[in-house]
């Protein structure tokens, strides 16, 4: 569904991504790991269509379409979801109104009628149960006054509501206690279907105990330097990233 080819991108003139190649097929879970500053979040931003990041070279194809030419909202409507590392607060806008706007935009895009108020609320209830989120959430403003854990759970809830084809979770596990981590992971596992895919960006192996990836990539200095099965995550946990860094440097010298 997604093919990234030699992707290079910069932020404010600084080169961050230096030639990323990646292919994701329907039903796959890819984990992207790597030390701080390696370009993980930048990759997520490029895929979601954030203007701040300038693509300087390469291509991204999504279901045969040039993703880089699509606006952020069109990408969302075509089924790309980004779980934010730092979810944004929108004071005064209730979760109900926010999600209603989002869900109905997506339905409009598919040529469907907007959901009736009762159908919509029913959907909210079901999805809230699915991701074990506080039922009072609906009446609160988007992320306003939410704890760190609540914000992350709220991202998973929104993902459940929007049923994306490709969900990118940007460090959704950071700052979560073990219970919240389990809730987030369970949410992902319940939403998973044979035809949708996930990119899980994380620092730590522990999330991958709950969300079992098909492939693990290591992103370092703007490139994917290692790709292997789920056992790679365990190896990284054990040895740290220095091992990878050394390997990369040796390769360059050799």
């Amino acid at each position: 569904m997604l093919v990234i080819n030699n992707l290079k991108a910069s932020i404010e003139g600084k080169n961050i991504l230096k030639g990323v190649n990646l292919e994701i097929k329907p039903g796959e879970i890819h984990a992207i790991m790597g030390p701080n500053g390696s370009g993980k979040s930048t990759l997520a931003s490029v895929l979601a269509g954030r203007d701040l990041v300038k693509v300087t070279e390469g291509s991204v194809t999504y279901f045969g379409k040039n993703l880089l030419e699509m606006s952020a909202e069109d990408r969302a409507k075509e089924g790309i979801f980004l779980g934010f590392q730092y979810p944004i607060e929108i004071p005064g806008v209730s979760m109900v109104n926010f999600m209603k706007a989002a869900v109905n935009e997506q339905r409009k895009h598919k040529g469907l009628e907007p959901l009736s108020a009762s159908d919509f609320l029913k959907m909210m209830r079901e999805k809230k149960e699915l991701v074990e989120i506080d039922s009072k959430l609906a009446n609160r403003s988007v992320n306003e006054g939410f704890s760190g854990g609540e914000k992350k759970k709220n991202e998973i809830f929104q993902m459940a509501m929007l049923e994306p084809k490709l969900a990118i979770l940007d460090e959704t596990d950071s700052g979560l206690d073990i219970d919240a981590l389990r809730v987030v992971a369970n949410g992902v596992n319940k939403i998973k279907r044979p035809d949708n895919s996930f990119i899980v960006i994380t620092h730590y192996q522990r999330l991958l105990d709950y969300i079992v990836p098909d492939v693990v990539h290591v992103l370092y200095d703007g490139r994917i330097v290692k790709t292997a099965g789920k056992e790679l995550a365990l190896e990284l946990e054990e040895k740290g990233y220095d091992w990878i860094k050394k390997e990369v440097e040796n390769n360059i010298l050799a």
Partner: protein
Amino acid sequence: MEKDQNKILSDVTSGEYKYGFYSDIETEQIPKGLSEEVIKVISKKKDEPDWLLEFRLKSYRHWLTLKMPAWAHLEIPPINYQDIIYYAAPRKKETLKSVDDIDPELKKTFDKLGISLEEQKHLAGVAVDAVMDSVSVKTTFRETLAELGIIFCSFSEAVKEYPELVKRYLGTVVPYTDNFFASLNSAVFSDGSFCYIPKGVRCPMELSTYFRINSANTGQFERTLLVADEESYVSYLEGCTAPMRDENQLHAAIVEIVVEKNAEVKYSTVQNWYPGSREGKGGIFNFVTKRGMCKGENSKISWTQVETGSAITWKYPSCVLRGDNSIGEFYSVAVTNNYQQADTGTKMIHVGKNTKSTIVSKGISAGRGQNSYRGLVKVLKNAAYARNFSQCDSLLLGDRCGAHTFPYLEVENQTAIVEHEATTSKIGEDQIFYCNQRGISTEDAIALIVNGYAREVLNKLPMEFAVEAQKLLQISLEGSIG
């Protein structure tokens, strides 16, 4: 993103002002200019008693000694007060007996504005006094209200039918010497609404006045007097619109509210006078004095205003908290777009003991709009345990607009607690991107964020009008959505 945002914001400007039409109604006018003669003519046209003419002349003579105030953060072009028509009225032959007697053109005008003058067609539970230019053309539900002893009629009728009440309260909250525009209004005011809620009566419907400026070169000087007797309650709403014209038109109104013991008045305004063109041509100068007196113990006044119109707004709905334990509230959303300017806020004067006031002001600036909050919280010597909370937020859209805050605190009693919070924010690119990423367009995202920002105030409006106001916010900021 920045570019998108600016483009969308500039699209606003192409958003048509929906109420800018002019109705071709036969109008009776007096010549331009202001003098004692003109005041006598107005008074005579309205067949007023001598005491009222005296009040007008006294006001006029005082006005002559005053200069236009210059302290507001506004750029006001010079106004030639001799170049204004002070009285214009849709021509009518005799007093209206039923809705069928109303000029069909007039009825059409108000229908077009969404204000039906026919009771059965109107929003259930809202009584309307419709004022065009200098006169009230129709007040609905008068009989229904009269059964409860509630008086709701035009100011002119009140002068004729309830002269004692008018005389007792007129000018007691806003004296004719109060300020330049109040003196002018006291001299030339033409019509407006009068409302009296008797002891112990809870008004069963919303009362509302709809003001329409129609004629060119005229000023509108209406006067509203609202009296809530002991243990009574009323919720009152005013709305206003005007045709699009290249010249500025002056609107200088007075609203006086008197609230007796244990009574409560909720006064809401949705102000949508013509704001001028995108280049800043034309528009209404809205110079208004609004003040309520919490006269009795435990009385309460709550002002809610949504200000989206007018080229210039100069307006400070205030509360004098005289009765012990009385409460004053001010909730405001003010939008300035294009070349609009607003200097608005409130005064809370704590006189009695245990008096409480709350101020929530939300300014929104876009285009080259300039938005100022100006507020005074004054706690007098005897106002023991007075309590105030003020919150002033400003939201900036784009980078050519301005937001300013001028809070004044004068506290003379040691036991008072006064709090002030202020924030200034821009709509964040990250907020817009967050919405985009959920499939919401930038335009809809701005509307969503602005409405969220104003929610606290919009929630204070009567239900029927909250939706209206929300739409209005979107139209004045985004135009292209409309």
